[in-house]
């Protein structure tokens, strides 16, 4: 059974940063689409992969 991990960092202020490990190709975007729905996407850019694991880095802001 395959496993993937999302590492989330939330500093003071509620910004959410996350990295996804263990999902290859377009499945990564599909599986992690729920993260976009946590709020309003204000920036999204693709970055080069490094190593064998596909990564997605996400930064989110939560405003009151």
């Amino acid at each position, binding site marked *: *059974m*395959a*496993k*993937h*991990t*999302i*590492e*989330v*960092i*939330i*500093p*003071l*202020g*509620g*910004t*959410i940063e996350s990295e996804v490990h263990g999902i290859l190709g377009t499945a*990564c*975007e599909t*599986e992690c689409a*729920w*993260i*976009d*729905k*946590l*709020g*309003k*996407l*204000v*920036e*999204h*850019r*693709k*970055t*080069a*992969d490094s190593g064998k694991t*596909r*990564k*997605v*880095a*996400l*930064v*989110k*802001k*939560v*405003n*009151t």
Partner: protein
Amino acid sequence: MSAYKVIECDIKNEEYIIAGLIDMGFPREQIEVHPSPVPLAGYTGRLGRQKANIIVRRNHFKKATKARYNADLGFEKVGDGYKTHINSEESGWWKSKEPRFKQVAATLHVTAQAKKRGYHVTKVKTGDVVKLKLTKNY
């Protein structure tokens, strides 16, 4: 291919606001929750035109802020989010507490949504930074 994203979202859940207030040190019984907004008291104690659904009354709020004059602290449901009502006297106090308040709300939001999707959530807090590890088998 990888992706970098920036997302802004509002706190839309009253439970997150209540949790944030409890984290600030307000006991749950001091936090009023009203389905319909009710008037807030100003620093004189008189009820004004501003209304809110989630309220910490000025007598409780005064102990926390140690300000000379206190009005009620309120969160008014506006659309699908909340608007914060705070007197200018306590704005400095709120400004110092708001980053942690938002962090608590964001942590609960991510945790709830991840669990809903079958993730196992492990929380590891390091200093002022909350770290969550979400794992899922598929």
